[in-house]
């Protein structure tokens, strides 16, 4: 039998070196006895038979898991890990949970990670006197050998203070550099004044109306309580909970003084200037509260038209999209960007255009974290018509440009055959000319790049025609 003694500090690294050496000598796992700290005198000590030597190559994922499991308190872990690395080298596939060794290592690694996580959660520092940087100390009792693996977290988090975390076996010290020492005596630092504030917080953040002791204990098991300054409040909080709830129920509310309420109401609802009736601003405010069709409910807001009241040209699109719904302004999303580029190239000044949509709310279907555009139907277009009519009546444009079938339908009563009608000028009932073109989002959807290019050129030609027609 080969005896291997691993040190208390640096156990995992030492195991790795030893395991490589043992494998190089070809020593079988059943011929190795592993110890940590000091070796007890062993009657069967002696050397082990050597076999075929080899060098170990272990997948990175497997090694990380094995080294985590080596921090477990199970005395068998070193032997199991050595056996497993040899088997992995012989072709065992890592990750197969039906293998007993792999499964055990995975379970132990998980339990070690949980212990480390609990250390990160339940270490409680107390301030101790110092010269220079502030200094803190904590006493903690982990379930496994997790000090070395668990404390680099604190070095990252508390980089500007000195600290010590003492555990029954190993003490971690940080003064800019993290070092480990064997603990010589159990040392709980003296209480510090902030602890009372923390206890106050703990007692008051607790809601007595929803006592769930089991849920608390599954996450904060009693074994950790003795080093938590807040834990001794728990029995009292649970005991008093029912009484506090009963008191709440008994204490009937009274109305607050009318004057106080009135003052608060006035402050809570600040006066906003009311826009003059018969202006676009008044219309916009009115439309913001529109519930004429069901589209208002899932949408964020009414996206009303934008532009000067004396614009010569009014562009009408289909409906706001995802970005427009969030921003509250029409044509700001991808289709809006195409529109902007082509309008500028065609010589139109966007600041002089009135831009709006046939339907003022975004119609969509939710898909996880996205929204899929849906075409508005006839009744939605009809319900929204009143706003478009009033916009037309106030702006009185010389030219209307209908972009897409929905706009065309809203303006002329029919959206059929848009591709045949595009580029032509039709008339509203009152004689206002309506130039027909496609919706810029149509250009975004064309899969064939050649066709997209050609269509984009035609779109620009339509806008150029609009620019020509709008000139006096």
């Amino acid at each position, binding site marked *: 039998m080969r005896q291997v003694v691993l040190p208390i500090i640096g156990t995992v690294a030492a195991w790795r070196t030893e395991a490589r050496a043992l494998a190089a000598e070809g020593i079988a796992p059943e011929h190795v006895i592993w110890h940590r700290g000091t070796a007890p005198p062993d009657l069967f000590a002696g050397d082990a038979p050597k076999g075929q030597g080899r060098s170990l190559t272990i997948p990175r994922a497997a090694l990380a898991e094995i080294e985590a499991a080596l921090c477990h308190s199970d005395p068998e872990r070193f032997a199991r890990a050595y056996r497993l690395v040899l088997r992995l080298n012989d072709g065992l596939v890592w990750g197969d949970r039906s293998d007993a060794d792999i499964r055990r290592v995975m379970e132990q690694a998980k339990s070690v990670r949980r212990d480390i996580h609990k250390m990160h959660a339940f270490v409680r520092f107390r*301030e101790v006197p110092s010269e220079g940087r502030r200094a803190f100390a904590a006493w903690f009792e982990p379930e496994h050998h997790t000090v070395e693996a668990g404390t680099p977290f604190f070095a990252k988090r508390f*980089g500007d203070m000195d600290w010590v975390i003492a555990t029954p076996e190993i003490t971690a010290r940080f003064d800019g550099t993290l070092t480990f020492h064997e603990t010589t005596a159990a040392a709980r630092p003296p209480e510090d004044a902030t*602890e009372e504030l923390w206890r106050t*917080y*703990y007692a008051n*953040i607790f809601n007595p109306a929803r006592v769930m002791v089991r849920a608390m204990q599954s996450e904060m098991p009693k074994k950790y309580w003795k080093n938590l300054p*807040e834990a001794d409040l728990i029995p009292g909080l649970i005991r008093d909970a029912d009484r506090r709830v009963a008191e709440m*129920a008994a204490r009937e509310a009274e109305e607050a003084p009318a004057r106080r309420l009135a003052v*608060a109401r006035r402050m809570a609802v600040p006066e906003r200037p009311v826009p003059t009736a018969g202006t676009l601003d008044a219309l916009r405010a009115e439309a913001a509260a529109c519930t004429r069709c069901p589209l208002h409910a899932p949408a964020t807001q009414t996206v009303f038209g934008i532009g000067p009241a004396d614009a010569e040209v009014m562009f009408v699109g289909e409906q706001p999209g995802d970005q427009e719904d969030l921003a509250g302004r029409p044509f700001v999303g991808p289709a809006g960007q195409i529109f902007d580029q082509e309008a500028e190239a065609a010589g139109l000044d966007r600041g002089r255009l009135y831009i709006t949509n046939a339907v003022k709310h975004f119609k969509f279907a939710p898909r996880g974290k996205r929204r899929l555009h849906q075409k508005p139907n006839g009744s939605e277009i009809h319900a929204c018509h009143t706003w478009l009519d009033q916009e037309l009546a106030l702006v009185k444009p010389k030219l209307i440009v209908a972009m897409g079938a929905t706009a065309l339908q809203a303006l002329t009563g029919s959206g059929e055959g848009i591709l045949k009608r595009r580029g032509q000028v039709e008339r509203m009932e009152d004689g206002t000319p309506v130039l027909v073109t496609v919706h810029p989002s149509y250009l975004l959807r064309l899969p064939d790049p050649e066709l997209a290019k050609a269509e984009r050129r035609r779109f620009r030609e339509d806008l150029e025609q609009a620019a020509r027609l709008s000139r006096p």
Partner: protein
Amino acid sequence: MKSLTEKLAILSDAAKYDASCASSGGAKRDSRDGKGVGSSGGSGICHAYAPDGRCISLLKILMTNFCIYDCAYCVNRVSSKVERARFSVEEVVRLTIEFYRRNYIEGLFLSSGIIRSSDDTMADMVRIAKTLREREGFRGYIHLKTIPDASPELIEEAGKYADRLSINIEMPTEAGLSQLAPEKSAKGIRRAMGEVRLRREASREVTHTGKRRAAFAPAGQSTQVIVGADAADDRDVLTQSANLYANYGLSRVYYSAFSPIPDASRMLPLKKPPLMREHRLYQADWLLRFYGFDVSEIASQGMLDLEVDPKTAWALAHREQFPVDVNRAAREMLLRVPGFGVKTVDRIVAARRRGAVRFEHLVAMGAVTKHAKPFITLPGWTARGLDDDALRARYAPAPEQLSLF
């Protein structure tokens, strides 16, 4: 003049009805350079648990519980006689830093009653976050509750200093909100969420010179809805959640069972909070986000089943779609098997490429075979009992004798 301890007692008591506790995600930061304190960006840490089973991860306090609003469900509404207090900027900064250095918390979750005006309140909250970040070099987690109607400049600044922003939608329906919170507007809240989403997206785009922009609320935004204070059913609640996830890319919707508050308004039910309903809503929320379920599938009845979880309830109601062949079924269908979680399904899909998955392997893959058994078929197991009328009883809790009180 109240002491710091008294203020802390009042202002943490006032904050406990907010369920949010997450401290995960967001920007990776640490203080290895020795010039500040704190780290964030990993998985969140719960530093303590209260006897209500809720985790304590952040210092969750109100800046003040003075409030000019009169929301019926809120302990801090103007018409409540609850004792009032207000922290100074320095006091909140000091509490946060001192708690943080002792490893009590992951950071700060700051909310507030509305004093004077939305902008005044928001400006003070932003000042706290700014002092923590710039003067104290604080690199821990900050969650700010934004105030409805605060100005865009303040929201912009808040998003610069905070990891997460949130604004509570409060009620499942617009009607419920206007009834119980007359000064709040659902549309205003949704507009604010839309604005945060746009700013987050803009912050992720590189500038025209190729530089990265300053992060804006890198851990996202969340919201909370109170359940059981109005007449809305679970379908209303979940429909709203699906809408909020899609519209504003929320990281989380929190559900908070309405819990009796001291000095409660007479408009509200003063009974035990519907904790089981809250639990089922969280389960259903997970099904919507990670399991490919649609609201209409799990909440078609209006209310979720309180006795069995929503996934099992769906499976029991759709037995014709089972048993599922574990080695052949699509991932989407495996996700619908009770007792199979997302991780288990991923492991099954990976393992069956190497060879047939057997029943004996399932436990090691994380499946709860006791729940899955009637709904699956695979080597080593044949489903049985699927058409048994008593199948439901195996999942429902045993009938309890009614309490006399």
